[in-house]
């Protein structure tokens, strides 16, 4: 067992013993801290996926009211009603998420605010059922088959067991296939889709899981308090949870726990101290606000990252053994893999591309060149399904181009001109994203760490790809710490792990050193020998001319020449496009 795991175990043991040794007044505070931690952990996961929610408390409320009202009215065992209530909240969250998660920018937090307030106001306004603002008492304690959990210490321990399990599950998820995909959601949507992640569905899953944690927290809350009213599930609690997540550090589930413990204890300590000094109650909120602002000014990343620097690093996941099985491509040089017919795209009045006809056959190595702004990257975006053409058709392996996240499954992978690595992930984790479509462990398997065998294969393949491009030693560095040239090579390794039949390379050599370029050329030649079809956009003419069999030249959105490198080099139109005049003038 690693040093980190031992430490985690020790801290967990302390947290589980604490309820039995605290004075009884503080047991309640510790229990509520655990409940808030659980809901805040859900927010941490959402923040990792780039979503800010101002409605988390409303899901707590759904879980709470659902379980409390049914258990109170029908006398059903409250553990069962809790489970059902969490499940129903998950369904509601799936519906809300499906509708709202397509919102971009500030629309999304605004929508969370909207349903948060709407649901919370409903708890107050639906007086006949919920008891209105004054709430309902006589909520049964948590129970099953006649056994009632009425011991607050035991209840608190149960809460913290759930919190610790959630932290453990999410730390497993973080290094799993789905966890790596979640890390792309904040700002690399297009890249994620290019490697087979259905980002829409994944967002909804993250949202639902976050709501489940909130609902569970809400249910635990009412059966502990044995009283339900709307005020704990309003906007203020949503803000409180968000504050906990951000102060704790939204990079890891542990941050949610640290945030909840810090803020709850700060709040109670303040109340206690200020009351002892005889200060008025108004001071509490002011001092709390000051503490909050100062903490964030001092640790904008959150408290947990500040603490984690001093802890032993977590053990790396195993990458021993065989990688994923790869396919062997046939040397059938006549098969048309990609067929572009009359592609055009307009941005407002600007015709960025017009009348593009192009064919890629199996095993071909084609270069796409042209001056800046000729439309090369736009054409790439269309081929990889990230942009829709306004006219014309793209045929991939004889079928119409599928939606962007299915393209890699057909066998086409790409790199990006502007490097699209997830900076918070390590190099090998970024590369492993390439194998997303070749594996299938889902959200739940990731949470429960049932993906070990598959993950080992993925990491072994990723490591092999890194060795192949000469970056084996950098595997465990953060992607953001590499220089730009190496980041580009990581992009290539990631595309290789996708085991493509067609490889689209968008300026892979920009910013590379000479030795790195040699490596690149060597890899490209190897791939060609394996009958991989390559479409290369590149400005380094020496590299392009030395590698490709055929060149396509774009200028101002049109194809102006096609043919062997030698023919194209001699073509007057090409020279004019590059040098901005006739051949004679240029000479």
């Amino acid at each position, binding site marked *: 067992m690693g040093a980190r795991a031992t430490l985690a175990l020790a801290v967990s043991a302390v947290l589980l013993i604490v309820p039995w040794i605290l004075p009884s007044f503080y047991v309640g505070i510790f229990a509520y801290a655990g409940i808030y931690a659980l809901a805040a952990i859900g927010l941490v996961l959402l923040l990792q996926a780039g979503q800010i929610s101002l409605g988390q408390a409303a899901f707590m409320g759904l879980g709470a009211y659902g379980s409390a009202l049914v258990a109170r009215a029908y006398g059903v065992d409250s553990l069962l009603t809790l489970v059902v209530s969490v499940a129903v909240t998950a369904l509601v969250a799936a519906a809300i998420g499906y509708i*709202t998660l397509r*919102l971009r920018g*500030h*629309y999304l937090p605004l929508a969370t605010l909207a*349903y948060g307030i709407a649901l919370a106001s409903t708890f107050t306004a639906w007086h006949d059922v919920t008891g209105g603002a004054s709430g309902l008492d006589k909520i049964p304690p948590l129970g099953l088959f006649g056994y009632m959990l009425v011991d607050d210490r035991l209840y608190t321990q149960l809460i913290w067991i759930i919190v610790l399990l959630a932290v453990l599950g999410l730390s497993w998820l973080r290094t799993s296939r789905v966890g790596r995909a979640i890390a792309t959601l904040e700002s690399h949507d297009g890249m994620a889709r290019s490697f087979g992640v259905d980002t829409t569905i994944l967002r909804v899953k993250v949202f639902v899981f976050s709501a489940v944690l909130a609902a569970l927290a809400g249910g635990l809350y009412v059966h502990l308090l044995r009283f339900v009213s709307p005020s704990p599930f309003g906007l203020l609690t949503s803000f409180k949870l968000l*504050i906990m997540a951000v*102060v704790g550090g939204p990079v890891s589930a542990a941050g949610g726990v640290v945030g909840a413990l810090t803020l709850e204890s700060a709040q109670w300590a303040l109340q206690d101290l200020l009351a002892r000094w005889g200060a008025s109650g108004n001071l509490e909120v*002011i001092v709390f606000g000051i503490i909050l602002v100062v903490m964030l*000014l001092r640790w904008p990343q959150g408290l947990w990252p500040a603490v984690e620097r001093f802890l032993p690093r977590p053990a790396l996941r195993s990458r021993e053994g065989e990688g994923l099985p790869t396919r062997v491509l046939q040397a059938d040089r006549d098969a048309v893999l990609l067929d572009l017919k009359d592609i055009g795209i307009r941005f407002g009045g600007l015709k960025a591309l017009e009348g593009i006809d192009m064919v890629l056959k199996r095993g071909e190595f084609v270069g796409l060149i042209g001056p800046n702004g000729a439309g090369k990257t736009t054409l790439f975006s269309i081929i990889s399904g990230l942009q829709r053409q306004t006219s014309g058709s793209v045929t991939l392996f004889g079928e119409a181009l599928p939606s962007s996240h299915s393209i890699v499954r057909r066998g086409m992978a790409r790199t990006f001109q502007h490097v699209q690595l997830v900076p918070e992930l390590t190099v090998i984790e970024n590369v492993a994203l390439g194998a997303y479509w070749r594996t299938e462990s889902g959200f739940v398997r990731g949470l429960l760490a049932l993906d070990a065998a598959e993950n080992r294969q993925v990491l072994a393949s990723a490591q092999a790809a890194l060795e192949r491009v000469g970056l084996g030693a950098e595997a465990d560095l953060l992607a953001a710490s590499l220089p730009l040239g190496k980041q580009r090579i990581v992009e290539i390794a990631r595309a290789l792990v996708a085991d493509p039949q067609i490889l689209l390379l968008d300026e892979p050599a920009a910013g590379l050193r000479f030795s790195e370029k040699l490596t690149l050329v060597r890899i490209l030649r190897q791939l060609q020998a394996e009958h991989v079809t390559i479409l290369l956009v590149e400005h380094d003419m020496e590299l392009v001319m030395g590698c490709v069999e055929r060149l396509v030249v774009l200028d101002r959105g049109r194809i102006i020449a096609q043919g062997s490198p030698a023919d194209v080099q001699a073509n007057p139109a090409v020279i004019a496009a590059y040098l901005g005049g006739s051949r004679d003038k240029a000479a």
Partner: protein
Amino acid sequence: MTDTILFLLVDGLTNGLVYALLALSLVLVFTVTRVVNIAQGEYVMLGALTLADLLQGRMPGTLYLLVGGLALCVLLDAPRWRRDWRRALAFAGGLIVAAVAAVALTRGALALQLPVIGMMAVALVLVAPIGVLIYRFTVHPIPNATTIVFVIISVGVSMIVQGLGLLIWGANPYPVDPIASGGLMMGPVFIPYQSFAILIVALLSMGGLYLFSEFTLMGKALQASAMNRLGAQFCGIPVNMAGGLAFLLAAAFSAISGMLLAPLITANYEMGFMVGLKGFVGAAMGGLVDYPLSLVGVMIVGGLESTSAYLASAYRDVLVFSLLIPILLWRNAKQRVETR
């Protein structure tokens, strides 16, 4: 029926105009500094309560905030004394003069018993600089923090200012005189003069902001920082000054909004948050970057609010905020088409 609809229309429009000033402040702050300022509504409260104090002939508690903030500013400047004591002295001296001037101005205004409009101007002079102070304390030290960190910091600021408001003014509501009392029967509906005053002041403020941004160098610097912070910095625009200026103007607009709103609902220490939220909702419909769309947004919010308050007051907030989601979806779909 027509009467009711007309009445709701006027009511919604009045609310909308008040929120519009707030939405304007939020857009201004967000575009220049990338801060989604949850605390913007607190200036509404400060404006309203300062005006209430001035109109009743009291020294406004806002002076404590202003003078205290200036003092903290001098304290935070302490490291500079060792490097360059002359400038530090000039800076501290300037702030002390500002504090003395603010007190003198208030005393003068109280002695002269200015009319409501005059008192509004004095209140504005007292409240607006607090925006700059808050910029200096909470945004200036960490210019590169993420959006969410600034959101939470502004929540903290909101807590602090609201807490101080409670400490200074207590929990009682204060009545505030309108600019002009009475009203006008226009056809079947009665329109209070205050509604006209709101319309005029709101339009003047918006027009003023427009003229300022288009026709002054400082306004253009503000626009440049809003479009591209780094680029503006390379062009020699002091972006920190632009940030402070944005906070100043935003505080001023929000304070005006509070002073216009207070006669309609009475002023109290916690009035800012809900108003701020509704301004935010309006501004966010324009993605926090688009002034005209924000105006449309707040008008929708104002209209929804008065209509649903009339139809089902218990479910008012439920209706307002549920109706928001389809509008957001529609805006979102439209925006995506535009960018494609």
